[in-house]
């Protein structure tokens, strides 16, 4: 009896306004703004040297001053990410399909895929430079080896989680493995696949930057490396900011794609 009013209180509280506030972008924006203000203040008050931690205002100045160079580098990196991301999706899906459709091949391939996943991919960057030179190819290769895995894994999980009794229904009317694959397993896996694709989008950004670190004459990764050798930390941060913007852009592009491709996914059902 005594704990009943307490329960009521704790239930009524979130209903007031917290739900509405936390659900919006407002708290994040406030925190971001506060961080920038504190950052600026700390750098100014303690007179921290710009090559150690540049103030947000200095980063902004650098961004404006180097706008042309930065935009050009952003375009190069964005191209690498987009290309590498698409190749990762195609290859990731292909591997998943082969594993599910051809049982013996799957049993051969799957352990190797998992084994390969445990190779530190970043360490492959110098080898890729050695093999493919300084152009686009080593970046695509690096993004591919970093980003295909979540695509393959998520799609596999989706294709293998089809309900047994649904498979029984299909078998009872004599459905072929290919029919079951394309009419049931693949569409069933799409919500999972889209989740994997979003992870791949984020990993693609990392792959591109690592590829540029290892050897490039252009792109945001190159700008970061070059600027840090010049102790132009403000420019490093400006480039980092653009990398983050790219990352967010690709992530949300994948999310928009998800809403278009799998409008039936559970998370959208009750929206």
């Amino acid at each position: 009896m005594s704990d009943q009013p307490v329960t009521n209180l704790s239930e009524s509280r979130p209903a007031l306004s917290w739900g509405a506030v936390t659900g919006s972008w407002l708290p994040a924006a406030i925190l971001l703004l506060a961080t920038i203000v504190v950052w600026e203040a700390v750098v100014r008050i303690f007179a921290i040297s710009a090559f150690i931690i540049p103030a947000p205002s200095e980063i902004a100045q650098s961004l404006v001053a180097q706008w042309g160079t930065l935009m050009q580098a952003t375009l190069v990196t964005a191209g690498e990410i987009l290309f590498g991301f698409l190749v990762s999706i195609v290859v990731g899906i292909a591997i998943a399909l082969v594993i599910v459709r051809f049982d013996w091949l799957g049993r051969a391939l799957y352990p190797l895929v998992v084994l390969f996943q445990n190779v530190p991919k970043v360490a492959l960057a110098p080898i890729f430079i050695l093999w493919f030179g300084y152009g686009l190819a080593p970046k695509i290769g690096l993004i591919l080896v970093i980003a295909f895995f979540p695509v393959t894994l998520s799609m596999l999980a989706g294709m293998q989680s089809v309900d047994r009794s649904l498979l029984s229904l299909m078998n009872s009317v004599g459905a072929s493995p290919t029919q079951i694959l394309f009419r049931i397993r693949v569409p069933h896996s799409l919500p999972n696949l889209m989740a994997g694709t979003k992870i791949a989008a984020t990993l693609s950004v990392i792959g591109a930057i690592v590829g540029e670190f290892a050897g490039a004459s252009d792109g945001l990764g190159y700008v970061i490396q070059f600027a840090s050798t010049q102790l132009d930390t403000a420019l490093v941060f400006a480039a980092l900011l653009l990398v983050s913007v790219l990352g967010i852009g690709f992530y949300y592009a994948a999310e928009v794609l998800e809403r278009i491709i799998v409008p039936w996914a559970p998370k959208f059902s009750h929206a």
Partner: protein
Amino acid sequence: MRVETIRAAGSRPADIRHDDLISAKGVSVVMTRQLVLQNIDLSISKGSFVSLIGPSGCGKSTLLKVLAGLVNPTSGSVSIAGLSPVEAARKRMIGLVFQDANLLPWKNAVDNASMLLSIADESLSRADLRACGHEMLELVGLGDSAHKRPHELSGGMRQRVAIARALALDPAVLLMDEPFGALDAITRDSMGQSLLEIWQRTGKTIVLVTHSIDEAIHLSRHVHVMGIKPGRITGSLDIGLPYPRDLSLEEDPQFVRLLVQLRTMLRASHKPGGAS
């Protein structure tokens, strides 16, 4: 002793008669070294409505899968109109309904209803499939929800689509494994009533696996009671109540008598036993 008396009163002859659509002879199933079904003899005449009832683990779902050709008996034989269950299934003679409707969430009700038919007969055009899907949805009372996706349908409505999907094959036999098991009592009642109407309109032979004594008596013409360890048929009961039946049946003294009788048989079937 009491079971024996009831069985003597209510059992049907085990020999196969001419109008038997489904007949199982000496069917045993061994799975992972366990005797799941022991020496099942079953004959179901065309147009009949038969329920299999029994405690969990009595193998009633496995028996249904044997009839559907999804599980091969370790020994014994099953024939459906003279064909093996797998052959019968390929000829679209078997419609299956499980506890979970298992609708495809990316397809609307019509396309779900015609989904199995589209695989069973690839020569059918999209328009034919749609037409058939619509017709089946009308039959199960979902004519006006044709374009809804599964997540927009209630549990009972989803199960109606699953029944429509099975009927779209125009099967001779409808095999149903606890189709209303996940539904609330009231929905269950109305689904049972609809199933009876569908049965009477289409003349399908229906085999229903159920946990519910009420449901078994309410719907079926014959009830087979199954026992555990090993899974076997321990008794059979004819439900002599006339069709059409509705919910007022429960006030019928004969219904109550059958209820008591079946409950007694079920209680006995819960005890593990040998070949008796």
